[in-house]
């Protein structure tokens, strides 16, 4: 009798083929998966495999990465990887890293041709070719009004000029859609939205929503909600409300419609950026604010607990999809993939200002899994989460009839 019991227990796992096991594991949060690498040798092999990374990425919900800005102030993130330009003496080097796997590569930048200000690095992935590329836009030293762009395909080891560009001043939390990144120049008016397609390597203009005479009349941010490009406007004047416009059909001006309207109790903040729409109907909104002591201590409502958060300067929240895609697989032509905590400390040293623990990578990772309407969360530091104010607002938004 006892023997049969043993037999049953031992065959359970063998009954599940590796394909089935990969399917189950890929549904777990990144933190759980990392810890399960030490369950047994088979699982370590499965989780480290290229196929698992692909499978997992297709399922991995977008999360939020809070990072300390490097002194250079330039950073962008896409999907699985993060790009960091280190400050000070390392100004001519950028790093592309996968913070989950603690891997990074260095890319050298010939920045003599570029003005110190007005350059931007953005990371993206071509929609079909699955090539990861870095876009570099900069103003030339001699001709300030003629921004240029170069592309670096990871694995090729070299920059290529792609000619004239629209300059990028900032990328908002998440503007990645259909293989393109999107940005706007938030001045007094908003005439168009710019895009860059990482597949075709072309810049384009997209129509902006029909705001009053094109006047912004408030603070605005681009974003992606429900697979559509969105523009959130927080109006300066009464009625004090926050309007979220959504471009229901990509590229079609007529398809812009007012999707959500918030009327918060108070408007003691300047910027307002919806981050993630949860299935529970909650929406995560980032409120970024400098003034008033009301804002020094903030609350995040999470799993019914309230976590105190403090403002820390020079931090930013960026959309981030945690992934197991290894730089070893996509960066074969690079000089070296560095892996280990000691190698990585080179990055945070110059960008550590927000962090207290020098062994950490200078960032906190928060993962909001919205796949089943449940918010889960992890952080990479024992210290309390410190960053800009993030508030979960209960959905009090009204659907606006367009």
């Amino acid at each position, binding site marked *: *009798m006892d023997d*049969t*019991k043993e037999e*049953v*227990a*031992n065959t*359970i*796992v063998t*009954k*599940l*083929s590796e394909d*089935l096991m990969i*399917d*189950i*594991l890929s*549904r*777990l*949060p990144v*933190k*759980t998966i*990392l*810890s*399960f*690498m*030490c*369950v*047994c*040798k088979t*699982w*370590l092999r499965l989780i480290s495999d290229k196929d698992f990374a692909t499978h997992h990425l297709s399922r991995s919900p977008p999360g939020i990465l809070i990072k300390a800005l490097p002194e250079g102030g330039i950073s962008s993130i896409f999907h699985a990887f993060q790009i960091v330009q280190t400050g000070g003496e390392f100004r001519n080097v950028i790093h592309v890293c996968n913070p989950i796997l*603690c891997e990074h590569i260095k890319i050298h930048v010939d920045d003599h041709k570029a003005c110190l200000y007005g350059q931007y690095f953005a990371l993206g992935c071509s929609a079909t070719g699955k090539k990861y590329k870095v876009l570099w836009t900069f103003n030339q030293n001699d001709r300030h009004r003629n921004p240029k762009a170069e592309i670096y395909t990871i694995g090729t080891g070299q920059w290529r000029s792609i000619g004239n560009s629209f300059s990028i001043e900032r990328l908002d939390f998440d503007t990645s859609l259909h293989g393109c990144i999107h940005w706007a120049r938030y001045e007094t008016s908003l005439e168009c939205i710019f895009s860059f397609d990482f597949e075709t390597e072309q810049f384009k203009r997209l129509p902006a929503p029909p705001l009053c005479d094109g006047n912004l009349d408030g603070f605005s941010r681009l974003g992606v909600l429900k697979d559509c490009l969105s523009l959130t406007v927080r109006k300066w004047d009464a009625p004090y409300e926050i309007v979220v416009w959504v471009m229901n059909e990509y590229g079609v001006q007529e398809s812009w419609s007012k999707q959500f309207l918030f009327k918060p109790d108070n408007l003691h903040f300047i910027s307002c950026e919806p981050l993630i729409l949860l299935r529970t109907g909650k929406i995560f909104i980032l409120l970024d604010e400098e003034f008033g002591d009301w804002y020094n201590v903030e609350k995040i409502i999470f799993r019914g607990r309230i976590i105190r958060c403090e403002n820390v300067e020079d931090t930013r929240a960026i959309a981030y999809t945690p992934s197991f895609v290894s730089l070893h697989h996509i960066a074969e032509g690079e000089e070296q993939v560095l892996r280990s905590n000691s190698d990585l400390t080179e990055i945070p040293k110059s960008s550590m200002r927000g962090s207290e623990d020098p062994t950490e990578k200078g960032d906190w990772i928060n993962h909001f899994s919205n796949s089943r309407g449940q918010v*889960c969360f*992890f952080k*990479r*530091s*024992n210290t309390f989460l410190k960053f800009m104010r993030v508030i979960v607002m209960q959905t009090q938004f009204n659907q606006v009839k367009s």
Partner: protein
Amino acid sequence: MSSSAENPTLTTEITKPSTEIATETAQSAKKINLKTSDDQIFEVEESVAMEFATVKSFFEDAPSSTDTVPLPNVPAKPFSQVIEFCKEQIKFKANPDETEKKKSNSEFVKEKTNEDLVEMIPVANYLEIKDLLDVLNQAVADRIQNRSVEYVRSFFGIDNDFTSEEEALLREEHAWAFEDVDED
């Protein structure tokens, strides 16, 4: 653990579906005989059997066949539970209601033991019942999410084949992943 204890229940579970079918649908539906790996014969309504892509293609290849369909990779115990699931699913086919369907699915997995779930997965996979496979894999993932390594080893009956040095090294590499794990 429970396999020997469950043997008596096994037989009652097997006889139950066939008697039910006999009384319920004597007048109408065509029935199909399916034979499990442990030589149990299940008499299943055609509409339920067609939920199994593997069985469906068997009849597509041999439309006039009246033989018993052998299911060499399917043991009786998980199979009876799979039939239970598919019977419920058919109700929603005629009357689609996503909320009710989700509720019914979550009730189905809730009352199953860990072992039940893990044993049904290869059956659902072999019979190519996509919806069930998705429900089961998600249910197992939910049960092991944020659990300790030790818990998961016992959940699946996995032997740790790392040396203590190797394991310590792996734990050190991603130390943060082992913080705040749910208690076993």
